[in-house]
């Protein structure tokens, strides 16, 4: 209730999905729709003002995604945001400082490194499928049962750092499944493909107060 009041005083509501052409966003918007979360597309800086929450989706190649994001001209405006921002998969990786994928500098909102899985650890790449996420007591994971699995599909991961980690996962090594710094959040898994728990997480994000 409190959140709703706050949003209405701000005159903005719902989730803005940054539409920068990195992968398909149909599944994400479908999941938002199933959760009755209002949403719209963010194409311009002015669009960023229209919504109380922002999601940066993304699949594919980090350096290609970064290039596309830069082309939108939204980089500085995104970095300056004070409202809740959620990066998903490659969208999460964009929040970090640097990715080994294409050896590219990213938004550097969260000072972490995105690294390639080490084949020598005897794991298959990509990390594909449902893996158990070990999360902390955090609003994003509210009402998600302990030991819940989420759906991952990626070849690069974000190094584990207890300062920014809010959930970790093991595959070859322990890395971050979810991170946070201030109003910026990121999840490596795909909540829009992670069954009911994933939908719950999207709902939780949309309920975070600005």
């Amino acid at each position, binding site marked *: 209730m409190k959140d709703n009041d706050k949003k209405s005083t701000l005159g903005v509501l719902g989730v803005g999905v940054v539409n920068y052409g990195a*992968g*398909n966003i*149909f*599944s994400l918007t*479908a*999941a938002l*729709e*199933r959760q009755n979360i209002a949403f719209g597309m963010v194409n311009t800086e002015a669009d960023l003002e229209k919504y109380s929450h922002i999601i940066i989706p993304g*699949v*594919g*190649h980090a350096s290609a995604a970064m290039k596309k994001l830069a082309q939108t001209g939204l980089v500085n405006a995104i970095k300056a945001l004070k409202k809740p921002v959620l990066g998903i998969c490659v969208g999460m990786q964009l929040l970090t400082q640097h990715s080994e994928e294409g050896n590219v500098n990213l938004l550097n909102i969260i000072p972490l490194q995105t690294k390639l899985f080490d*084949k020598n650890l005897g794991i*298959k*790449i*990509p*990390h*594909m*499928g*449902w*893996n*158990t996420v070990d999360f902390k007591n955090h609003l994003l994971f509210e009402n998600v049962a302990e*030991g819940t*699995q989420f*759906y991952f*599909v*990626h*070849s690069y991961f974000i190094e584990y750092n207890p300062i920014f980690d809010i959930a970790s996962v*093991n*595959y070859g090594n322990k890395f971050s499944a979810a991170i946070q710094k201030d109003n910026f959040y990121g999840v490596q898994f*795909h909540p*829009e*493909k*992670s*069954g*009911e728990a*994933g*939908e719950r997480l999207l709902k939780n994000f949309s309920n975070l107060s600005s």
Partner: protein
Amino acid sequence: MLSKRIIPCLDVKDGRTVKGINFVDLRDAGDPVALAAQYAAQGADELVFLDITATHERRKTMIEMVKSVARQLNIPFTIGGGISEIADAEALLNAGADKISINSAAVKNPQLIEDLAKNFGVQFVVLAVDTKHINGKNIVHLNGGRLITELETESWIKRAEDLGAGEILLTSMDHDGTKQGFDCNLLAKINQMINIPIIASGGAGKMEHFTEVFQKTGVDAALAASVFHYGEILIPNLKQELKRNNIPVRNP
């Protein structure tokens, strides 16, 4: 721990699922959306839809179906059948498909694998391989096993991995339909060779076969059609059985 995936495969013709499906409580067993939702509710980890008509003219029907499925389904799904160019793949991606499965088109034009991986990422590209044991060799077949190629299965899969396939869906034609179990020898061999996930297919008849394939081969997922459609194996029971055998599975 990464779970082993259980994947029902649905055959689709003109946007409708075919083959006997005997779920109770389903008003329309041919509706792919209703079926997909039912499987998701039962705890399937992923779904594969195979377009068995897959002609160019009917592509539109398929795209509409994919959109409806993506609107409803909260687990990943793969679309296969008749995908031969980037434009086909892109249309499916934009309609909400998580992965596409290619088969004949990749054999005819291996470059397609690389092009798809470059455009959409390796995670989007599943290479389906139908293989048959002939004179001591494993040989790739096309058109549901009716057409023999000159490719040896092992070298074709290795090459596909190098080109950028993100996952292999390996169907043993010798085991498919027999209900005598998966081809564990071949699957174990291929699994040793490559470093991308493998979906085992062909031969599932009872729950023990799933336990066996995960214990003996190291594959990442197992796919089946009729045992699920006819209700011979129920996914919740299968998950329980696998768990009892210490195989990591997802509890939905």
